[in-house]
């Protein structure tokens, strides 16, 4: 069926040409392919980040830094619209709304994603490549909202991306760091 010719093989000597049976070899390859196909992971899971920033009580030994508060995006998920409010401390810097479409099947807010990217370009405070801090976004949602709707909004929020220098190389990272509002 198949052979390996290594030449040589004189009179009286054993023949150097060997016949390899290909059938077990093909069987082995087939079984390996089947094993790998069966054990392969076809669904790839990923993660989407959130951050629970819970400020603790002020440390009495440390001096309070009188720094101006940063601008924070408050994203309200209302029944028919999304309300985007940039606040600096208690001061409202900017406020805008965008219609919330009724989603069926595929939960994805493309218009919101585009609007959030535009908002970050206008109001975002951390744009430098060497800046490791991200702009903060706080999500305000109704308690009855289903999780896939929440994830669709977080996904739209993370659509806004910027360049950041990480370990000496430039990487695309989400422009916002998201947290939930807690009442």
């Amino acid at each position, binding site marked *: 069926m198949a052979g390996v010719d290594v030449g040589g093989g004189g009179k009286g000597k054993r023949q150097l040409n060997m016949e390899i049976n290909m059938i077990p070899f093909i069987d082995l390859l*087939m079984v*390996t392919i089947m094993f790998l196909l069966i054990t392969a992971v076809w669904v790839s899971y990923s993660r989407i980040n959130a951050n629970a920033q819970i400020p603790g009580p002020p440390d009495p030994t440390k001096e309070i830094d009188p720094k101006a508060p940063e601008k924070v995006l408050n994203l309200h998920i209302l029944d028919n619209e999304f309300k985007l409010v940039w606040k600096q401390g208690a001061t409202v810097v900017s406020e805008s709304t965008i219609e919330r479409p009724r989603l069926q099947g595929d939960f994805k807010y493309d218009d919101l994603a585009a609007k959030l990217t535009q908002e970050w370009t206008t109001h975002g405070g951390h744009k430098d490549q060497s800046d490791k801090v991200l702009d903060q976004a706080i999500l305000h949602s109704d308690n009855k909202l289903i999780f896939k709707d929440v994830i669709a909004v977080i996904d739209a929020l993370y659509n806004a991306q910027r360049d950041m220098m990480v370990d000496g190389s430039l990487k695309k990272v989400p422009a916002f760091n998201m947290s939930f509002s807690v009442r």
Partner: protein
Amino acid sequence: MSGGASKARHGHHDPHAHSIHKPGRRLMQAVPLNFVFNKVHGVGARSVSASLNLTAFIDFLIVTVIFLLMSFSASGEMIVDKNISLPQAENVQEVLDAPMVAVNGNQVLVNGTPAGSTRAIEDVGRMQKVDEVFELLKRQREMWKSFNPQKPFPGVAILQVDENVSALVVKSVFQTAAFAGYPNISFMVRRRGKPAQ
């Protein structure tokens, strides 16, 4: 077929008798022409059986095996609760090795250990600390710290939440994890392909 011919071929005495004959080719067997005979018997035609070149076949199998071995991931499989249907997202990151908190329609599990009821959280109707989740996560954190006394605790936990669970339950578990020392929380999702730009 005439009665005489039939008798001559099969040796029947009665030309009108209906008997069972030996199976075999019948079509155009009685046509007394050479070219018909050759056509019927396949004389000069291409052989029905074809030979397969094994070298190309084995090359193909080896390439397939190598490709599958390269893409095989023994550690990439994450254990996801079978009662959980994860939502889809586009802007995602790779999954980390961290404590898993699973939230399905009925219960909350920390690394597979039951740690509270989803219904109980919904019945209260306001955000609350889930005590069992808090205790289990706190224990995990303390264990990690005892094994790694020199390293700073990363505080990362991964939440596997069913897509139809209410935001109240999600926020309650999220807050509980934060209280237990896990402020960096990630939600496990199914990756959705990005549309072409």
